[in-house]
Structures are given as C-alpha cells and as structure tokens.
C-alpha cells in the first residue's frame, strides 16, 4: 500500500491498521512526517501522565449510605403509590406530525444515498472508487439529504437559539460538534470525491445529525 505525506492528516484522523503500518514505514524515510508523528505521539504520552489516583477513604461509605437510603425510600414509595405506576399521559400536537413527515423524507433520501453503486465488470470487490455516473448520483442524493436536514434544523432552531433546559444546551453543543465533523468530512470528500469510504462516513454523520434533530423535536413535546 502506497502512502505519501499528503495522507498524514487522514492517517492521524482515522486509518485502518494496514494504512497506519504503511505510513510508519513512509515516516522512516521522511523526516517531516516522522517529526509530525513524534509530536502527535508526545501529546498522547503526556496525556497518560495526567491520570491520577488518590485515596478517598470516606467516599465509599458515603456512597453506601446514600444508596441504602435511596433504596429504602424507593421501597416505601412503591408500597404507597404502586397503583399509579401503570399510568402514562399522552399528548400530541402538530409538531410531531411534521417531524414524522420530515423523517420519511430523510429516510427515503438516505435509502437513495445508500443504494448500491453500479460496478463495472472486472473490478475487484475492494474497489472503492466511484465512477462518474455513480458520483453524480451520490452528489444529487447528498444535496436532497442536506436540504431535508436544513428543513429539520429550521424546525429545531427556536429551541436551540435560546435553550431553556440543560438538555437543549447539551443538544446544541452536540450539533456544533457534528457540524464540525461534517465540515471536515466534506472538505476531505471534496479533495477525494471518488472515495466511497469518505462518502459513507459523511452519511453516517448526516444520519447522526438527523437523529439528534429528531430528539430535539421530540423533547419539545
């Protein structure tokens, strides 16, 4: 497997074992890449030293008292209010219906995006390059999916702009991380448009964004 200096960032981000081994071999003959790997490794090495342990003789007894007290309280609550446990309130509004409709659109788009790409006869099973027609199909499907995600984002925007609960604040932070990952993967895919692995990784992150937005809309109910 041939790797070059241009593969450094991709290797550091995520690489199969054989790719890593190939890059280590490359680094033996490339001072620049060797230095990059060394610096990267230094951070990991220093991080290991951050792990710290200390004695807390009073901690477990405190935890045990809390657990015992909580268990006693729960047992008492069950005996007093056990007849209520089967009751669950239901309420519906128009927002879940709209979210459900968007989920259908996204699911159809995802199926289109994931459908098997046509293979040319004679290519081996490991060939991950997308041919021109398949590439155009993937681009079109991605555009539809992104548009559907944007619509879902617009629905969730009011809750995210001014999160009223810690849960929504957490969701907003999660979406920032996901969007950052999408940006990086799209940049990578832009440089390597025929790389099906990158496309699949990008789809996985899109799907995660979809799931997160659905959870936000669900929390809104």
């Amino acid at each position, binding site marked *: 497997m041939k790797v070059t*200096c*241009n593969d*450094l960032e991709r290797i*550091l*981000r*995520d690489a199969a*074992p054989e790719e*890593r*081994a190939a890059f*280590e071999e490359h680094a033996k003959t490339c*001072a*620049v*890449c060797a230095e*990059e*790997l*060394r*610096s*990267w*490794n*230094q*951070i*990991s*090495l*220093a*991080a*290991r*030293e*951050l*792990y*710290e*342990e*200390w004695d*807390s003789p009073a*901690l*477990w007894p*405190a*935890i*045990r008292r*809390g*657990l*015992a007290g*909580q*268990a006693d309280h*729960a047992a008492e609550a069950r005996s007093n209010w056990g007849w209520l446990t089967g009751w669950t309130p239901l309420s519906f509004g128009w927002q879940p219906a709209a979210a459900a409709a968007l989920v259908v659109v996204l699911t159809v788009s995802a199926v289109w995006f994931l459908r098997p790409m046509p293979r040319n006869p004679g290519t081996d099973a490991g060939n991950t390059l997308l041919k021109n027609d398949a590439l155009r199909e993937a681009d079109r499907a991605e555009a539809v999916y992104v548009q559907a995600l944007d619509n879902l984002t617009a629905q969730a925007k009011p809750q995210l702009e001014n999160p009223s609960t*810690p849960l929504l604040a*957490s969701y907003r*932070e*999660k979406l*920032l*991380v*996901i969007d*950052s*990952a999408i940006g*990086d*993967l799209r940049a990578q895919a832009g440089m390597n448009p025929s790389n099906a692995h990158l496309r699949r*990784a990008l789809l*996985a*992150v899109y799907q*995660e964004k979809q799931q997160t937005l659905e959870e936000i809309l669900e929390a809104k109910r």
Partner: protein
Amino acid sequence: MGITGLALVWETKISYFERSQERRVENPLPSTTGRSAGASPSTEDAALAAACQAGDLAAYERLYELHGARMKSLARHLLGSRHDAEDAVQETFLKIQRAISSYRGQSAFSTWAYRILVNSCHDLRRRHARRRELSESETQNGNPAPEPRGPGAHPSLRLALERSLAQLPGRQREIFLLYEVAGFAHAEIAAMLNVSEAVSKNTLFQAKKVLRQILEPPRAAGRPE
C-alpha cells in the same frame, strides 16, 4: 509558548501506532483490582448489571472497586478539583441506582455508568460555575509545586498540557480525556456521549490539532501540505 518539553531521548521513543493500540479494549476493567476467577470482562460486566438491578448493594461496591479510581480521575479533569470529582462520583452512583431499571444492555454496563458520570460532571459544573478552587499542586504563596518526574513525558510538557486542556471546547476536552487519559476506545466514547465513532475520532483529531498549536507553534518550512 516556546516549547521545551517535546524533545524525548531516543530510548523512550514509542511508536505512535503501538501506543495508540494500547489499552483500547471494548469492556475495560482495570487490572489493578481483582476479577472473578475465570470470568471474562463482558461476563462480569453483565453479572454486575444484573446484581445491581436486583438491588444488591455488594454489586455497587464491586462496581466502585472496579471503576471508582478511574471515575475519580476522569471527573477530576472534567471538574478541576478532587473534591468536586468525589461529589460527582457519589452522585453518579446514586443516579445509577435510580436509573438501573432503564439499563437494557444497549452498551456495556461500565460504559453506561461512565455515561452517567460524564452527565453528572456536566450538571455539577453548571451548578458550581462560579466556584474556583486552588490547585492542589499550588503552594501557599501561589507558585506551582514541583511536579514529580514521570517515566515518560517531560514534566514541563505534562504541566503545559494540563493547562492547555482548559482552552479546549467542552466536547473536545471530554473526548480527549476519555481517549488519551482514561484509555477508552472510540466505540465506548461514542456510546457514552451518544455520538458516532466518526464524530469521536474527528473531535479527538481536532482537539489534538488545537493542543499541538498551543504547545508547539507551526514551523515556517518543511511541513507537509
């Protein structure tokens, strides 16, 4: 910041990829405490979950024996103080007990417990947002106490790294701590933080890029494009 700590003698150089493969197990159980004789980590994990669901306090104690030290270390870095870390661990165990009936084996029991720990740290950090605690490494006159020399990294790099972590965004710091300090695999981190492995890997990469820029400014030439 001029860097003095990134130089290593050749004898202590570790292959990057050898190091990255260490301690990455799907169901990590610390080797410092005893395990049931002949039990695999996943078997003991499942047995522990079942016992906790049955309300066995001894199972919670076993969970503490297995993971308490690691939980405290992780919480210490997420919250900045040992006292808050112990509060977070205590709160975590109470939350585990309250939520135990909702555990359905969707991930390893230990992974589920650490997820609760991370959320507990979030909650505690919000409640104590204005709280500041003097670093336990500081002397009374405010100067940092000398760090004990570790077997690997240069002490000044370790100190610089710990201070640099505070400059990372919350999620990047979390994933960095979970992966590089606590030794979790990306699959476990993904389950804990409810993100995909791709996001976990990408966020770790971004975190290390930022840390590298803080700890070692880019050189003028010779860097690959």
